[in-house]
């Protein structure tokens, strides 16, 4: 994994030293800096050095600012976490009722509406949605700020106001994907034999829905929600830029622009780690809700 990250980044064209030095510099300065950053060494050796430090938590120093990569990431992490959790909430608030309603009334008006809405959400690019939201709510209506970030501890209201638009922009996309899953897994559970058994027992409908339909539909849902959360934690680069949201996505974008290899490597490695950890959590959660997995 880390090999892949490392090699891909070094395939990127452009010389970080040249970029860092600007237009006028002497060959001596260039060589000196190149040697100091270790960029003159063979790639394999660069990788071994980097990986060796990375496992101890030392991700190197930014070419651009001279700060350590770990401190840069730690600084950006709260903003990204906030946005990801808020977006996931938005996604679930959209997806759960909409998916359930359409599964309970297939081919009804609600179902068709949900299909159209989720198709829209899946197909629309998030940057376009972000810009539209800014135009309407920050521009025309002027009710919400167009971007930026303040810490919750400094200004709770301002925090919330600035969170709403980016959270909706990213949440709608995830929500659309999850809606599809809620619908299909609910439909599958509804049609299963054990639901018929429960009905034949004379159990009240509500109880059939919660304990027999929802409880079983939950299994695939946990998986897709985990994947969406991982995506939200790592994939919201464009939305963070549009809303000037100082998160990891923005950090990664700036690092690409500046050919700031250590920062980019650190960020991508973290994204990969997020996927691994969330998948592990999903598996652990699975064993909590599905007894067939727990006992094995």
């Amino acid at each position: 994994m880390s090999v892949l990250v490392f090699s891909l980044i070094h395939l990127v064209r452009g010389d970080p030293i040249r970029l860092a030095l600007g237009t006028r510099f002497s060959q001596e300065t260039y060589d000196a800096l190149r040697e100091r950053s270790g960029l003159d060494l063979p790639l394999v050796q660069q990788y071994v050095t980097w990986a060796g430090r990375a496992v101890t938590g030392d991700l190197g120093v930014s070419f651009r600012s001279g700060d350590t990569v770990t401190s840069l990431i730690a600084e950006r992490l709260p903003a990204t976490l906030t946005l990801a959790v808020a977006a996931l909430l938005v996604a679930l608030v959209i997806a759960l009722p909409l998916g359930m309603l359409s599964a309970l009334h297939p081919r009804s008006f609600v179902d068709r509406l949900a299909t159209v809405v989720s198709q829209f959400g899946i197909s629309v690019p998030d940057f376009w949605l972000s810009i539209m939201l800014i135009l309407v709510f920050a521009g025309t209506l002027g009710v919400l700020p167009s971007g930026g970030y303040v810490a919750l501890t400094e200004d709770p209201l301002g925090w919330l106001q600035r969170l709403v638009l980016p959270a909706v922009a990213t949440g709608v996309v995830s929500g659309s994907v999850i809606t599809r899953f809620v619908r299909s897994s609910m439909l599958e559970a509804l049609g299963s034999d054990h639901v018929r058994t429960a009905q034949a027992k004379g159990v009240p409908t509500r109880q059939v829905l919660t304990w027999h339909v929802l409880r079983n539909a939950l299994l695939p849902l946990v998986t897709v929600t985990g994947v969406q959360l991982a995506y939200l934690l790592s994939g919201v680069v464009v939305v963070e830029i549009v809303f000037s949201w100082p998160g990891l996505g923005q950090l990664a974008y700036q690092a690409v622009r500046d050919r700031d290899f250590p920062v980019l490597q650190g960020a991508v490695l973290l994204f990969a780690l997020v996927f691994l950890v969330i998948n592990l959590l999903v598996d652990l959660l699975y064993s909590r809700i599905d007894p067939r997995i727990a006992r094995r």
Partner: protein
Amino acid sequence: MTAPVLEVEDLRVDLRTPRGTAHVVNGLSYTVGAGETVAVVGESGSGKSVSVLALLGLLPARTATVTGRALLDGEDLLTMSPERLRQVRGPGVGMVFQDPMTSLNPVLTVGRQLTEGLRAHGSLSKAAARARAVELLGEVGLPDPGRAVDRYPHELSGGMRQRVVIAIALSNSPSLLIADEATTALDVTVQAQILDLVEGLQTEHGTGVVWITHDLGVVAGIADRVLVMYGGRCVEDGTVDDVLERPVHPYTRGLLGALPDLATDDEADLATIPGTPPPPTDLPAGCVFWPRCPVRGDARCETEQPPLAVVAAGTGGLPHRAATWCAEGEAS
């Protein structure tokens, strides 16, 4: 025979399908007395399962149209309110389904699935319901019911699961038990145990039983009366002796002829009925069996539907009836 538990009259079920309306059950009438076992036999697709699912309102309401009457202890199942129907499911009618591997909820314990049914129809406390669940599991012959109650379905074998399903169906002492291919998925020894179990419980509680199967061996073992279904209609009914020993309808004879006989001639090919049942979207105008019938002994076979008529006085005071124009030749 005492007053019937179940009286089905002219039951018809139409299902809307993409290929048109399927006439799955077409005027089915039968009664089940207390303590009596009626076997419903026929090929796959003859409407057996649909006809009983319709009784309990378990068909998808969006696509199914059910007409006729189905009196359970004098109350019509087909016209009662959804809430009343819910109350009847369980204490009125218990149902056992075909596949024990899928008819239990995989994420709930066996005990939970039993107590749920018990508590839906009574004011049992949690502890009392659990105690009753253990008792029921013991009654259906589950070893160590005190521990089995906390097991999940995947921890039990197919036969054990089917016992659990039967325990669920019997938990509210229903006046009628419907078993839809309840032993088809089980191996023969387990099947025999389950049949014994149901017979025992039936004599104990006086439950009426509708046993749906395509296994004529099971019919001979368990049933008092037999109803042969084909193309959504009853083509022949009577006591087990009458129908199995002296079949009248060409279809019933075909079914019995298709039974492999272990005692004789194991070199001979298995006799079969050529062709397949008519699609329920496109039933023949005359006798439903006409397209596959080897007899076709009457001019009306192709054009006119034969009524279900008495063909012999029958044994045990019950008439032996068949829907065929070709009964004149009398049973061979």
